[in-house]
């Protein structure tokens, strides 16, 4: 098996090309840093296996962020072929990476993407002239097919005159071979002592200048550029880049979308889907079971354990699709870079930077995915901070819980409760960022260098593919995780300690165990065994909360579940106060087990443990404040908030004192 790497600057169309070549549906977007990990697929061509790999974008072999490090290592370790994807509009900058590859004798071919856009603005590239220097061709990443042409590489010798001069200068000071010095100039300092490393680093500005002078000599004869052409600039930017307009516009569009998705068109689509599901699947199987099976537990196992899990969660499929439609439009349009720019000053005050807005927005879809995106931060503390605040952003898996529980208790106010939960999650994430920045994770270097993509017309076909992919993923999750865990929950809630089937849920193993923990949740009004079961299962995945509630309350449809939650006779029931407490707890505690696993991989065991403990503590304290305030009035809320504020200030003060003390004793700074 041979390896073919797709490399290049961020947002040039590598993943689009990967999707075309491998017939995949990997996540793409009109934003810098959408791909943050290596993704590969095996493709067969004429009996030979090719492992095609899509890498995160990188501007240079001297990595600036964590995802660039991944790409750099993959490129240096690849013994086979590389395709460098370049954007026609920024060929000059794209050739910089190509020149570094030439210096290291790495075999590659250039594919120039987005040429039609470039040409439309009265610019052109003379490809035959470019072929004198590099093996290059113009492609449309969306329409490429993997065939033998992709593997035809021409080796073109390039006389890198500037390099000889720099090498000669360095060799006056360092006794190393040319290849070792070239490797060091491209970020591989193995075998170099600190003094030698400093000598190499001191030459970098001159080398970069020389590389660009060399590139300019090529570009001069290759590219004809319209004088007024500016890639990434749009007439709409005059309006969009005004912070109040962007901020208010985003909030208005987002909350209008939530209303549209969950309260206007979503319920209609859900009802239609439920009808189809019942008609085609659930009713026929139920009828069959009632006529064929003579054992009540078999009938209940399927109707409650399996079908109610599917029914209650899968009915949210239309809403999930609409939410991803909203996020995909945002990503594809090029608005995210503009939001990052507009929000940068505000987020910097909290110890984040503008790029964090992308992590927050992706968190609205899936916290696990957005935790991975924290890799595109350039500084370690910034990356950890983004990963730690991300779970407080409400992901789409929590939405079914909000909608079901809120509509059971708040009727017409449900929409405002859902919006309030979103805002509460964002507020706590931002406060958490501020506290972390003031205590254990102070941002050391908060630079933000971001290239603006142009505002693009929406590609309906691409949006359709993304929505379909997410719909399939959600359905797989429902049939995989939700049903399998739902079955386990059903067994545990219908089996007693004699391992016999019981219809009395209160006699079951699950309820016995949950009942022992339940008193811990009494101060937040959630001391019922059924609720505790749902919260425990919810750590696995938030979709499971609704299915657990439906199993414990023996509700096969959402409307049956909604009415059962208000009945005191149901195993799981709430009051208005405990419903709010439950929703707040769901919003703020661990999103899912996969998020914990990704956190561990990205920020290590210590910060993962810290994250879990802080999420549980914050969820508990906030639920406590809400629950007790509803019971005892606004005075209680005010006193509780003051106490929490004082505790937070004390923590910040104490951490600063401890740090100062360490600084005076450890001598690290002086060194």
């Amino acid at each position, binding site marked *: 098996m041979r390896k073919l790497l797709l490399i290049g600057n961020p947002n040039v169309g590598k993943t689009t090309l990967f999707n075309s070549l491998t017939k995949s549906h990997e996540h793409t977007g009109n934003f810098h840093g959408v791909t943050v990990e290596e993704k590969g697929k095996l493709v067969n061509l004429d009996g030979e296996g090719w492992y095609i790999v899509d890498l995160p974008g990188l*501007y*240079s072999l*001297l990595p*600036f962020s964590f995802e660039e490090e991944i790409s750099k290592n993959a490129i240096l370790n690849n013994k086979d072929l590389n395709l460098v994807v370049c954007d026609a*509009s*920024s060929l*000059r*900058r794209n050739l*910089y990476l190509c020149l570094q590859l030439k210096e290291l004798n790495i075999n590659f071919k250039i594919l120039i993407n987005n040429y039609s856009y470039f040409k439309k603005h009265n610019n052109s590239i003379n490809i035959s002239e470019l072929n004198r220097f590099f093996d290059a061709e113009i492609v449309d990443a969306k329409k490429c097919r993997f065939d033998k042409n992709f593997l035809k590489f021409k080796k073109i010798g390039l006389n890198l005159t500037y390099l000889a001069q720099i090498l000669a200068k360095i060799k006056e000071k360092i006794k190393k071979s040319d290849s070792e010095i070239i490797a060091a100039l491209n970020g591989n300092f193995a075998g170099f002592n600190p003094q030698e490393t400093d000598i190499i*680093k001191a030459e*970098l*500005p001159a080398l*970069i*200048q020389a590389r*660009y002078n060399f590139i300019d000599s090529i570009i001069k004869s290759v590219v004809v*550029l319209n004088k007024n*052409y*500016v*890639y*990434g*600039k749009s007439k709409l930017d005059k309006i969009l*880049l005004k912070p109040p307009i962007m901020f208010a516009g985003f909030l208005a569009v987002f909350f209008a979308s939530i209303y549209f998705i969950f309260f206007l068109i979503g319920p209609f689509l859900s009802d239609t889907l439920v009808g189809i599901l019942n008609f085609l699947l659930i009713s026929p199987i139920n009828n069959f079971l009632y006529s064929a099976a003579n054992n009540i537990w078999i009938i209940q196992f399927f109707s409650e354990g399996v079908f109610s899990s599917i029914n209650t969660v899968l009915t949210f499929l239309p809403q999930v699709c609409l939410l991803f439609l909203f996020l995909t439009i945002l990503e594809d349009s090029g608005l995210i*870079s503009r939001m*990052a*720019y507009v929000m*940068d*000053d505000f987020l*910097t005050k909290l110890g984040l*930077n*503008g790029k964090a807005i992308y992590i927050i927005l992706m968190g609205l879809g899936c916290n696990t995915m957005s935790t991975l995106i924290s890799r595109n931060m350039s500084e370690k503390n910034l990356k950890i901070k983004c990963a730690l605040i991300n779970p407080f952003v409400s992901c789409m898996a929590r939405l079914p819980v909000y909608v079901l529980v809120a509509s059971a208790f708040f009727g017409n106010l449900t929409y405002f409760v859902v919006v309030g939960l979103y805002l509460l999650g964002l507020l706590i994430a931002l406060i958490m960022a501020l506290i972390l920045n003031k205590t254990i994770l102070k*941002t*050391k*270097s*908060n*630079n*933000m*260098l*971001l*290239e*603006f993509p142009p505002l693009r017309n929406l590609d309906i076909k691409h949006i359709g593919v993304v929505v379909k992919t997410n719909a399939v993923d959600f359905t797989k999750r429902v049939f995989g995780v939700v049903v399998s865990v739902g079955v386990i929950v059903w067994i545990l809630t219908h089996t007693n300690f004699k391992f016999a089937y019981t219809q009395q849920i209160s006699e079951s193993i699950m309820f016995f165990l949950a009942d022992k923990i339940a008193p811990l949740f009494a101060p937040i009004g959630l001391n019922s065994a059924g609720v505790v079961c749902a919260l425990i299962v919810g750590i696995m995945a938030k979709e499971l909360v609704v299915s657990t509630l439906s199993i414990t309350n023996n509700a096969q449809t959402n409307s049956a579940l909604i009415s059962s939650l208000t009945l005191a006779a149901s195993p799981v029931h709430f009051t208005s106060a405990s419903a709010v407490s439950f929703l707040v707890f769901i919003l703020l505690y661990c999103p899912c087990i996969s998020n914990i696993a990704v956190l561990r991989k990205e920020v290590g065991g210590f910060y993962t443990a810290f994250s879990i403990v802080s999420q549980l503590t914050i969820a508990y304290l906030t639920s406590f404040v809400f629950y007790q305030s509803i019971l005892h009035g606004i005075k209680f809320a005010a006193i509780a908030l003051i106490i929490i504020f004082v505790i937070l200030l004390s923590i910040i003060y104490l951490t600063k004192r401890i740090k100062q003390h360490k600084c005076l004793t450890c001598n690290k700074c002086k060194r």
Partner: protein
Amino acid sequence: MSLSEVKLNTDCVVKEINIADEKTKIRLMELGLILGTKLRVENKSVLKQTMLVVFNSSVFTIKTDVANGIIINYA
């Protein structure tokens, strides 16, 4: 923390680059902001604000450190 500064001549061509953080300076240069580059400030930004600049026919958002944005001085 020292100030970050990019000095331009009267034709808006970069004459001097002084970025406090060396890693950021190298990355800015790798993005094409080298001596002799024609640079235009889009948002007329002042100290402590994220800059929106145009160079080499591309738009960039630039902020170089926590304390400061980047000062563009017209020499």
